């Protein structure tokens, strides 16, 4: 039986108590994306300011409410993608989902697991790896991935508008 300390690592509690990048950004130029977990009512509001010239996440702000896992994961995600090129942010999304044992690209038939491993080789999750303990608590995986799905949604929406 995994214990509470597997789930609630100190760095997670730190992000929960002192969330990074809280706030809002003016839309436009920023893109706003909202994610909900219908099971528990958790909510993530994400503002992404992407520099169109360098395709880099210039700034990110987060709002919303939820449990420690969803809010800590949101905070950590915001720190991880701020200042990163968009394609690197997308790689982080895939790497984080792989950490949560979710292999979407494989399910969608885009590539098999070995390609994913190769692609993600060298992607450094850093502090985010503290969330790995969530995998042992299956009902909480959705809490951890909410922020990342919202990020993906925000990036997709921006691209579809640009296109």
């Amino acid at each position, binding site marked *: 039986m995994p*214990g*509470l300390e597997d789930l*609630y690592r100190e760095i997670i509690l730190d992000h929960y108590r002192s969330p990074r990048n809280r706030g809002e950004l003016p839309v436009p130029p920023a893109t706003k994306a909202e994610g909900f977990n219908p099971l*528990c*009512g958790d909510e993530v509001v994400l503002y992404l300011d992407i520099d169109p010239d360098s395709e880099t996440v210039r700034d990110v702000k987060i709002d919303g*409410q*939820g*449990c*420690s*896992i969803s809010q800590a994961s949101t905070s950590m995600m915001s720190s991880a993608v701020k200042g990163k090129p968009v394609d690197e942010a997308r790689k982080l999304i895939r790497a984080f989902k792989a950490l949560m044992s979710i292999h979407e690209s494989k399910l969608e038939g885009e590539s098999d697991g070995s390609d994913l491993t190769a692609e993600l080789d060298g992607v450094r999750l850093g502090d985010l790896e503290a969330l790995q303990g969530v995998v042992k608590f299956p009902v909480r995986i959705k809490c951890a991935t909410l922020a990342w799905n919202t990020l993906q949604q925000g990036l997709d929406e921006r691209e579809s508008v640009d296109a």
Partner: protein
Amino acid sequence: MTEVLDVSRVKADFPIFERKVNGKPLVYLDSASSSQKPRAVLDAMEHHHRHHYANVHRGIYTIAEESTAAYEGARAKVAKLLNARATGEIVFTKNITEAMNLVAYSWARKNLGPGDPVVITEMEHHANVVPWHILVEERGVELRWIPITDDFQLDLTDLDRLLDGAKLLSVTAMSNVLGTLNDIRLLSDAAHAAGALVNVDAAQAVPHLPVDVQAWDADFVGFTGHKMLGPTGLGGLWARAELLDAMPPFLGGGEMITDVRFDGFEPNEVPWKFEAGTMPFVEASGLAAAIDYLSALGMDAVRAHEKQLTEYTLRALEERFEDRLHIHGPRDVDRRGGAISFLFDRIHAHDVAQVLDEDGVCVRASHHCAKPLMRVLGVPATTRASLYVYNDESDADALVESLAKAEKFFAV
């Protein structure tokens, strides 16, 4: 305090309490979601499977007749428990959600048109909200909401105006989130005076207190078996016989007909008109055993026990956590049941439930399928502990100790 139920004996009747969770005794405080099952219920279903398993209402042979007798016997027990005028007023369904949908899809579709008002309340479970939303979209009926007061009661100030022209009042007898008990007779009288029928969501009431559909003077009452010690897969709707007679079938198929031709069909009599396909008749034997079990305890004793234990639990929570823990529900145990929702200021309901699980304490943390109510309360979710016949003060004490641990763990 004087015990109205011998809980240690009751607990011994439930095999699940023989197990441990994380090395600790199972503290089950989620009966408002689904109750545990006494050995008598498990035995009744096994007996049905082993001794007279055969489809009901079809076979001419002995065991089929025994099986049918058991199924119809279960219906009679439900009718007696609810004080129905006749056994045929009980229609079995999959659960109360299906019972609510039966009212919406059969009675309401036939009787409601554009602009016809349906009145519900802010404390309804989604099962008594979404079917009406669907009719708003499909038929253009008008949905009206009775608000709640700051002390978690229905706000009846504007009741007459809300009921003006209404065709149906659909209301819960006991909130699954707040524990609030609503005065169904008072609401029935007001609705009938306005010319509206009354549909009662009794999912939380039937397991926990004496219910008398005639004393309520209701028109429809839905219930579900798995919250009242019975198995999953079987609930039902009580309705006045003349309403059931006039209602069109909801699900079409086997057993719900008297004749099927190339150009149409003749529906079966009530209640079988509404019981298409093979019904969960083994589960009906389980439900009958559950009703026998509850009746042996006595529904008055069940209610008295839960009132005592709710008072004990509320007081223990108040004394230990003072105003750091918000209890979303009435304080007066005469006006509430044993579903207790609460929230710490800065700790999410899920995180609380996670810590409790480590101590073997099972509570629900969610919006409890009552999102409109969560919006009124201004919270995304609550943690809920709910009490039943197998709970005693030791369960309340375990809850309080585990909550203290959660508070400490997440202390800022």
